[in-house]
């Protein structure tokens, strides 16, 4: 750090000395009606070929060199474009933008709605996903889902049918840094992955980064999914609510002190358990539910300071209870996240902005059984947990229109309890309490500069130094990051990027479908950290007339030290007593190897106009290799998909009606299938080693992931009917999932058809989860 400070100071000084006849405009960009700050808004001065964009907190700073007043454009997807004339002097200017919705209502301007040009941005492999588009798309059960929308982007695969698991460029679901208001969300899924934990009503922005990672992100190998919660309306009280077939939700927001402070709360809960309750016998209760709760408050202390406090709490729970005359039985399985973030924004001057965050994140998974009779009580509790406390501080400095410098530091204290169990039996008077606990300190320091040395060239270079201390090990690892863009001609640019990432915590999973039983574990002296390097190159083209953007990217990603269970090991068959006796830990059940993937991604996107949407195509290969798995031979990853196509269309027929359609096609996932079925050789009488009866026949699996499942495709349709009422707007949202009821394989099994057809023969069967599923949701907004 000591060595970095003079370096930063030198940059500052050299820039300041040359900064003559310059003036800076800075401030916050907000939504007109709600005063919600807007991140990612572009402020462009075309005459001087200078631009800047607002940061995550809506703050912008643009330094220009001119003796005359200049015109700047303020451009953001979903908002009316604004043009302002600025006098040549330092100015603090908070800018308010009208939403497109508002523009439509007022019928003021048509065709002025614009978006950021992809060809003018240095960043590549990055996609902003408008929350409004997420709400327009048809979804399974009518549940609008951020992660399932992300799955429709090129380079992103879903795990299996209905799952909200995200596999980016051959990476696993644990390799995604999923952050909500700076807090890491460890388990992003409800109901074994069918729904994500993020309630779209509470979200302001969603950004997906697949490569070319800026230096301020670290800790994961494959992607960053950065979500920001809304601040809450500072002008007036508003809300949204919806009743669907699976869940109901409500969101309320409003000012605490007008223009200074606001709040937002949102909640969602499923009610299948309440509906089946009347059908259960007397004395018995059982079912499943999940719920989410988001809350945020903010307060503007003055012109230069703002404080935010936000949090998320969610739970999934299966439960069964029965009560007899002299006995009582309870079993439950629950898991969930809790996050909390306290942030302080401070503007030092027109060019320097700081955010400091104190962050808490917790994920735990519990299984509990309690059996009580008049004579004895038996209880068993198993749980695993990961808990983080983080402190981070980020500075953004805007010395000139050519430079935006970011630097910062973050430190996270992880606590892991991968396997903990408590057992008590009063009948045999036995009990045990076994907890595995690990602590790890993960830190990072970074500096990056977005530099525009030439009107056609844009560079984003940076370095992150990550540090990790745990289990007697201490590691410092440099992570260089680089992204560049060269504007070949107007609206057409070439981009390239390179990034190195390290991951110090791992998710042990052998299902690959994101069960909550997957265990988070730290890197230790035996399990070394994972490391990836990714290189990407491609073109970006804006079609101004058609309001469309095309990006084509190729990538190669190499990952070292990925972790997996050894063959045959799993969470469910680990004999904990035996482990203790033999002094074996989870580290004995895992092995490390490597993975590499490469591919090509094409995205044609239209964000504005009556008709919007995108077409995405991915061609990719993903391999893995472990010395002690599959006899050391390389194999395709389970989520290797050769072709993946997504077509998404949203058509606003009128302010009252919206139609949408999604069609997806993908080559099947790889699965491990037996290549032979043999009668059990256990029938070898006379042999000392043969008689192990495991059934009448046994399957012989000769290679890992040796069979590609049938191709997956599906069409979803959605219709929304909006109507303005006196005090609110109501929307009927009708979704039809899998319109042509394609039975996409969820898993494959060899089955004896004797019970099905009477014939004693083996055939391969597919089991699908979701045929055509219509759903309807009633929403109101006031």
């Amino acid at each position, binding site marked *: 750090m000591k060595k970095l400070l003079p370096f930063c100071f030198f940059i500052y000084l050299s820039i300041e000395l040359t900064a003559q006849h310059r003036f800076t405009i800075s401030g916050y960009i907000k939504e007109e009606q709600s005063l919600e700050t807007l991140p990612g808004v572009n402020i462009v001065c075309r005459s001087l070929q200078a631009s800047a964009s607002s940061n995550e907190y809506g703050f912008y700073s643009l330094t220009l060199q001119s003796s005359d007043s200049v015109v700047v454009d303020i451009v953001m997807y979903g908002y009316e474009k604004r043009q302002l004339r600025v006098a040549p002097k330092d100015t603090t200017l908070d800018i308010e933008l009208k939403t497109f919705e508002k523009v439509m209502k007022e019928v003021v301007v048509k065709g002025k709605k614009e978006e950021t040009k992809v060809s003018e941005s240095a960043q590549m492999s990055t996609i902003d996903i408008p929350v409004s588009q997420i709400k327009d798309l048809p979804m399974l059960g009518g549940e609008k889902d951020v992660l399932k929308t992300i799955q429709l982007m090129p380079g992103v695969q879903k795990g299996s049918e209905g799952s909200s698991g995200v596999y980016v460029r051959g990476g696993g679901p644990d390799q995604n840094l999923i952050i909500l208001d700076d807090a890491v969300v460890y388990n992003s899924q409800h109901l074994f992955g069918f729904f994500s934990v993020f309630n779209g009503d509470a979200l302001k922005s969603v950004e997906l980064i697949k490569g070319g990672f800026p230096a301020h992100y670290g800790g994961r190998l494959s992607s960053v999914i950065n979500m920001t919660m809304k601040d809450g309306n500072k002008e007036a009280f508003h809300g949204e609510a919806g009743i669907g077939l699976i869940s109901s939700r409500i969101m309320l927001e409003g000012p605490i002190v007008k223009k200074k402070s606001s709040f937002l709360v949102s909640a969602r809960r499923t009610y299948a358990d309440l509906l089946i309750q009347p059908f259960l016998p007397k004395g018995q209760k059982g079912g499943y539910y999940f719920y989410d709760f988001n809350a945020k408050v903010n307060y503007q202390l003055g012109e230069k300071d703002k404080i935010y406090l936000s949090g998320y709490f969610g739970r999934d729970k299966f439960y069964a209870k029965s009560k007899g005359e002299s006995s009582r039985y309870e079993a439950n399985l629950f898991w969930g996240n809790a996050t909390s973030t306290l942030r302080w924004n401070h503007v030092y001057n027109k060019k320097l902005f700081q955010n400091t965050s104190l962050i808490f994140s917790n994920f735990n998974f519990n299984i509990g059984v309690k059996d009580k009779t008049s004579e004895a009580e038996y209880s068993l509790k198993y749980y695993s947990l990961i808990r983080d406390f983080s402190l981070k501080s980020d500075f953004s400095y805007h010395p000139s229109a050519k430079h935006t410098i970011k630097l910062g530091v973050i430190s996270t204290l992880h606590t892991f309890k991968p396997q903990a169990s408590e057992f008590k039996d009063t009948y045999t008077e036995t009990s045990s309490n076994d907890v595995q606990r690990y602590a790890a300190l993960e830190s990072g320091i970074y500096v990056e500069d977005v530099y525009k040395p030439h009107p056609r060239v844009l560079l984003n270079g940076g370095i992150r130094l990550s540090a990790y201390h745990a289990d007697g090990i201490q590691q410092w690892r440099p992570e260089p990051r680089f992204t560049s863009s060269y504007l070949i001609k107007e609206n057409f640019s070439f981009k390239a990027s390179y990034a190195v990432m390290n991951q110090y915590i791992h998710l042990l999973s052998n299902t690959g479908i994101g069960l909550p039983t997957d265990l988070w574990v730290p890197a230790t002296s035996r399990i070394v950290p994972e490391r990836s390097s990714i290189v990407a190159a491609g073109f970006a083209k804006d079609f101004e007339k058609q309001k469309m953007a095309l990006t084509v990217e190729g990538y190669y990603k190499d990952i070292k030290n990925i972790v997996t269970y050894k063959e045959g090991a799993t969470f469910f068959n680990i004999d904990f007593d035996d482990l203790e006796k033999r002094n074996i830990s989870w580290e004995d059940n895992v092995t490390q190897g490597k993975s590499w993937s490469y591919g090509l991604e094409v995205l044609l996107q239209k964000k504005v106009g009556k008709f919007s949407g995108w077409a995405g195509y991915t061609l990719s290969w993903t391999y893995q290799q472990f010395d002690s798995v599959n006899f050391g031979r390389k194999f395709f990853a389970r989520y290797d998909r050769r072709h993946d196509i997504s077509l998404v269309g949203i058509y606003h027929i009128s302010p009252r009606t919206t139609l949408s359609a999604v069609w997806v096609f993908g080559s099947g996932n790889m699965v491990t299938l037996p290549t032979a079925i043999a009668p059990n050789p256990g029938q070898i009488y006379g042999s000392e080693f043969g008689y192990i009866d495991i059934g009448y026949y046994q*399957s012989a699996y000769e290679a890992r992931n040796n069979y590609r499942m049938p191709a997956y495709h599906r069409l979803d349709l959605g219709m929304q009917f909006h109507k303005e009422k006196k005090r609110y707007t109501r929307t009927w949202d009708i979704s039809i999932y899998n319109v042509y009821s394609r039975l996409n394989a969820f898993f494959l099994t060899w089955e004896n058809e004797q019970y099905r057809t009477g014939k004693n023969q083996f055939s391969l069967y597919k089991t699908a989860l979701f045929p055509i599923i219509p759903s309807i949701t009633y929403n109101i907004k006031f």
Partner: protein
Amino acid sequence: MKYFWVVVVALGLLNCQRKLKDQPDLQSDRIFVSSFICPQDPYVEVTLLELLEGNKVYPNNYYSSSDNTHTINDALVIISDGSQSVVLPFSSKHNNYRIHKNVFPIQEGKTYTLEVSAPGKRSCKAQCTIPFAIEAVVSKIDTIRYDDSGLSSNSFVLNLEWQDPAFQKNYYLLNRVENFAYEYQYVDWNWIKADSNISTSSTYEWEGLSDDAFDGKKYKFKSEIKNFFSSSNSIGYAFCHTDEHFKRYFDWKKLNYYDNPFQQPPIVYTNVENGLGVFSGYSKFYIKL
């Protein structure tokens, strides 16, 4: 009404099951070989099994444990030691190919080749080398009483010691052998467990023990046996020195045993070219108690 939702979900899933149009090839023209040869055994035995054919309709009792129709009985089975070879005849009584050691003796240190061909099947071939028998010394036998769910019983603790040959991979297996009135010997693998205080390198269950941690050294081993059968005619241990094929095949069998849907299926080990199964060798040293 209690099971209403279970029935609904089950019906839903069944309704969503379909036979795949393109059935993969199960490669059923291969032969499954199962043979463990040992100088101390009276017979050289080879069992050949037919692999199931996908989509073929079999008789209804085809998979039953008492039925042996899946055994290949018309194969040509030749075993050779490099200098002489012999054809193993099929024994319908034992349902395998066997020959007495007087006709074709198995010797420690020798490499044997097995060649199998059968009508309509791919010919296959495998090779193994017989390890030398290693003498294990029983240093002590303790009898302890233990409590199992409130019932007291006896258990034996066997202390063994042997010298591991240096500079080579060695694998060991300890079998409890009880001679019942039945024709075959009964072995229960799960009763043999190691004492973690002594066994420093690895677990010692029925997957066997490798000498990774004690190459060339004297090794002490303690095993506790519970539920000793008193009805057996005689009881003892077979201390086996096995080849690598043996070890790896039984590693696979153990993993496959659980049949756990949440684990990645273990990849089958075979040393049979163009076929499946195992042809392996071992030597044993009997310890009579």
